[in-house]
C-alpha cells in the first residue's frame, strides 16, 4: 500500500458492486469497512507489526479460498489475514471469513460482521460467495483450532472435509496460508468452556495474565502457491481426505519455513 493512500481510497478501489449508498448486494457497507479496517490497519501496522510473505499467490480477481491454520485464542489471525488482503494486495480485495454461528446472535457483533462481509459459516454462504467470484477465508480447524493451547501453537488439529468439497464443487483455487505468532500474542494456558456457555460463546481462553487480550507479538502471514483440485465435491471420503492431507501438508510446510526464519520474541 502506498504510504499516502488512505483506507478510504483503498475501499473505493475494491471491485465490488456497491450501490449509490455504498452497499453491495450482501449488505457490505463502505462506511463500516472503513471503520473496521482503520482499526485493524492500526493493529496490523503498529501493534502486531505484521509481515506478509507470498502475497502474489492470492488471485487478484475471481474466486479463491484462503485456507489457514488457527493461531491464537481469539480471531486475531483471521482479522490480520483480512487486513493483509485489504492493505497489501493490488488491487485491494475483501476477504470474507466464515464466522462462528454464535456471533450473529450477539448484538453489535451481528451488525459489524454482516456489514463487513464476515458472514455465518454456512455452506450456502460459502458456495454463493465463491460462485460470485469472491475471496473466501476459511480456517478448517474451526473453534477447536482457536482453542489450541500455547504449547500446541504450531500444531494443526483435525481439518474437516467441508472446505475441500466446497473447493472441488465450485472449482476454486485454494491458497494455503500460515499465521505465525498468534500463539504468542494470546498464550492460552486453559479454556473455560463452562463460562463460555454462560455468556454465549464456545469458550473463554485464559492467559497467564488472565484476560484473553493479545500481547503485541510480531505476526507473520505466509501465503503458499495456489492448489487446484479436480472433481465435483461429491467424491468418496478417501479421495477427499487425500486432498485435505495435501493442503494440511502445504500449511505445515509454510509453518515450518516460517518458524526457521522467525525469532520467537515480542
Amino acid at each position, binding site marked *: 500500500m502506498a504510504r499516502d493512500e488512505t483506507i478510504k481510497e483503498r475501499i473505493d478501489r475494491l471491485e465490488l458492486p456497491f450501490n449509490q449508498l455504498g452497499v453491495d448486494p450482501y449488505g457490505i457497507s463502505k462506511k463500516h469497512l472503513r471503520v473496521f479496517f482503520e482499526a485493524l490497519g492500526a493493529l496490523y501496522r503498529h501493534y502486531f507489526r505484521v509481515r506478509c510473505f507470498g502475497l502474489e499467490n492470492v488471485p487478484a480477481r475471481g474466486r479463491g479460498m484462503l485456507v489457514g491454520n488457527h493461531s491464537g485464542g481469539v480471531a486475531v489471525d483471521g482479522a490480520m489475514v483480512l487486513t493483509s488482503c485489504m492493505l497489501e494486495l493490488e488491487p485491494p480485495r475483501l476477504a470474507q471469513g466464515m464466522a462462528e*454461528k454464535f456471533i450473529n446472535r450477539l448484538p453489535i457483533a451481528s451488525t459489524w460482521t454482516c456489514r463487513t462481509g464476515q*458472514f455465518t459459516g454456512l455452506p450456502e454462504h460459502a458456495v454463493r460467495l465463491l460462485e460470485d467470484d469472491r475471496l473466501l477465508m476459511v480456517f478448517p480447524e474451526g473453534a477447536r483450532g482457536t482453542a489450541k493451547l500455547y504449547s500446541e501453537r504450531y500444531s494443526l488439529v483435525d481439518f474437516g472435509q467441508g472446505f475441500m468439497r466446497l473447493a472441488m464443487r465450485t472449482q476454486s483455487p485454494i491458497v494455503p496460508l500460515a499465521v505465525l505468532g498468534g500463539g504468542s500474542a494470546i498464550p492460552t494456558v486453559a479454556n473455560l468452556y463452562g463460562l463460555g456457555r454462560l455468556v454465549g460463546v464456545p469458550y473463554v481462553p485464559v492467559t497467564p495474565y488472565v484476560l484473553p487480550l493479545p500481547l503485541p507479538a510480531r505476526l507473520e502471514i505466509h501465503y503458499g502457491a495456489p492448489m487446484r483440485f479436480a472433481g465435483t465435491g461429491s467424491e468418496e471420503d478417501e479421495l477427499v481426505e487425500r486432498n485435505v492431507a495435501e493442503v494440511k501438508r502445504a500449511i505445515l510446510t509454510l509453518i515450518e519455513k516460517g518458524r526457521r526464519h522467525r525469532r520467537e520474541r515480542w
Partner: protein
Amino acid sequence: MKILIPGIAAGLARRVAKSLLSQGHEVIGIDARPWPNAPAKIELHGVDIRKRAAEDVFRRHRPDAVIHMATVTSLELSGEERHRINLGGTRAVFEHCHAYGVKQVLFVGRHTFYGAAPDSPLYHTEDEPPQALDSFPELADLVAADLYAATALWRYPKLTVGLLRLCYTLGEPGRGTLASFLVHRRVPMVLGFDPLFQFLHEDDAVTAIELALEKKLKGVFNVAGPPPLPLSMLIRAAGRKPLPLPEPLLKLLLGRSGFPLLPHGALGHLKYPVVMDASAFKKATGFEPRYSEVETVRAFRAAAP
C-alpha cells in the same frame, strides 16, 4: 382473458386489477371488504371466499385465470381467524378452480415463508424449508397456506399453478407491512442488529405478477427486484430516524405509547434478514424492475414525507 382476483380490495391487488383492466382483460373480483370508487368495468362480489356465494362466481363466470391474493398478512387479526381465512380460503380457491375449468392459478405468497433466524442463509432459494417457525408462531398459517397451495401442483396436474413468494412491496403509505412499519418519524430497531430488507416498488410488483400470468408460470418462484438495503439505511433514505432500543425494552414497548403492535416473534425480522434469490423468476419471465432500491424508497418518501 377473463381473470378472477380473490382478495381484490387489498392495496396491491387493486393495482393489479386496474392494470389488467387497462390491458383489455376482463377482471372480476371477490372480497368481503369494500373497494370504494372501483373502476365500473370491474365486477365486484362482496362475498367471503369460503362461502357458497363465492363458488357461484366461479360457476357463473368460468374464469380463465385466477390470481389468489386473499391471504391475510396483517397481524392485527386474531390467529384463529387468520388461519381460517388463509387455509380455508386457499383450499376453496383451488377446489373451485379445479371444478370450474380454470386453466391457470397464481398464488401470491410472502417472502416471510423462509423465516428470520440467526443461522439462516442470505438469499434463500425456492427449495429451502421454512425456518424459525417456533419463534414466530403467528406466521404459521401463512407458511402452511404456501405449502398447501404447492400441493395443488401434484393434486391438479392439469392446472397451471404458479406460487409467488413476493418480497416486501413499498408503495402508497399506510398500506402493506413495510409501509405501515415506516409510517412514523421514528422507526424502532433492535439495538445492535441491522438486517437487510428486500423490497420492490408496487409498480414493479404489479409487473411481476402480470409477467407470471403472461408466461404461464408453473412452480414455486421467489419474486424480488433490486438488491436489499440494511434497515437503518432504508429508514434514513425514507426520511425517518432509526430508534435503536435494547431488545428487552422494545419487547415491553410493543403496542404501547405509539410503538407498533407486533408479536414478540416479529422482532426476529428486525434482527435477521429474509432475503431471497429471485434468479429463477428472472430467468423464467425476463423480469427487470424499473425502480432501483434507492428510487423505490425515494418514491415512498415523496408520497409520505
